[in-house]
């Protein structure tokens, strides 16, 4: 899906836990997620703490979308 949307001319950020698979399948902008059963959250945290990490993932992704890349790039989230 990532590749098809990009083929249509729209940049894509792939948020995913297993970034090596994202690299293998050819995503250009990759943001690491938390874990496979809960990619965008963490049930071990309080609601307030969870909101902070969720916002960071989204903000990192938006920054990635605005960033020019010349090769496959992983944008680490700064927690």
């Amino acid at each position, binding site marked *: 899906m990532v590749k098809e949307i990009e083929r249509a001319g729209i940049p894509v950020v792939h948020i995913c836990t*297993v*970034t*090596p*698979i994202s690299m*293998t399948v050819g995503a250009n902008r990759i943001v690491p997620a*938390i*874990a*496979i*059963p809960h990619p965008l959250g963490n049930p071990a945290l309080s609601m307030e703490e969870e909101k902070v990490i969720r916002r960071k993932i989204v903000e990192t992704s938006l920054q990635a979308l605005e960033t020019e890349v010349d090769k496959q790039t992983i944008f680490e989230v700064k927690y």
Partner: protein
Amino acid sequence: MNLKLELGYIKISDIQFSNESKVENGVLYVNPEDIINLVKEDENIASCAVDIARPGESIRITPVKDVIEPRVKVEGPGEIFPGVIGKVNRVGEGRTHVLKGAAVVTTGRIVGFQEGIIDMVGEGAKYTPFSQTLNLVLTMEPVDGLRPHEHEKALRFAGLKTAVFLGELGRNVEPDEIETFETLNVKEGIEKYPDLPRVAYVQMLQSQGLMHDTYVYGVDAKRTLSTIIMPTEIMDGAILSGNCVSSTDKNTTYHHLNNPVIHDLFKAHGKTLNFAGMIITNENVYLADKERSSDWASKLCQYLGVDGAIVSQEGFGNPDTDLIMNAKKIETVGVKTVIITDEYAGRDGRSQSLADADPLANAVVTGGNANMVIHLPKLDKVIGHINFVDTIAGGFDGSLHEDGTIECEVQIITGATNELGFSKLSAR
């Protein structure tokens, strides 16, 4: 001093119900009341029915959770399933008796959506090794309101306790055959076989949580670091399955006890290779865990100084990444690898087989394509519940036809594409 384990095989030719539970002249007699009383010690289990399923009988067992071989420790330290049923103590030495040909199968209302089917006859029987065992089948239902994890645990313990109870019946029976497995320490192995290539076995254990779990001496494998274990410890039940999921390529407890990679490495040991050691590593859901565990698996291979390693996977999907990381990192420290996996290549077999890949993973043994479609006949008797066939993995809406026949992917069958090679699929 070397580690030596003797397995004494008591060949079981039939299972029959009786007033007294015993093993006599190769027949396993079971008083079902003994089993029901044992299982119902756990107040989380509301009901337990006991059935016998023999090879060739028109019986379908589903949804299957675990399969366990009855064993008993008769000499040497420890007990079967140490840290779980037996006390925590080193196992893997002395003598263990095995009721060869018999198995305990657990079923009952579904816990996880990837539980399997065992057919004792017909097309489905070709794909599961447990169509060839004499099965004592426990159909257990939990008390109302039991959460899935507690439900899984209650059934897991009931199966293990039953297997230990049956194994105990073979304690004083003279085995028909004895097989000896000896593990040399690193120094002696090198001195004794200086010219043979040294090969390690790296076993990956399912540990994704959400009922994809494995236990090592009672420890949840997802909380472990990669470590070294003696292959004979596994024959005494050091590793057991907590998986309710992925019937086709999970390792049931029976698979662990009879791991064919270990048995084949022992057969080749001292002839074509030196079986230098065994490493276990997990398959967790955090990327950092995957990196750490594969780092440690490769580091242990490097430290043992082996020439080659066989890496077996359990399950599919994101564990493909753990598999590829292991292969890549072990190759990078100068150790040749062969990986054992299975494939999800689509019903026509034309899709990419694994979710991840790397040029260093260049030697692969496959358990087969789990997406292959098969057709199962109606069988006379169902043990368990037939109504989950559409919802367990490999089934789909309409899998179960009104006439009782089933159209499904082969992954619905327990053990069909097992990644230890404990299966019957072949391209020949």
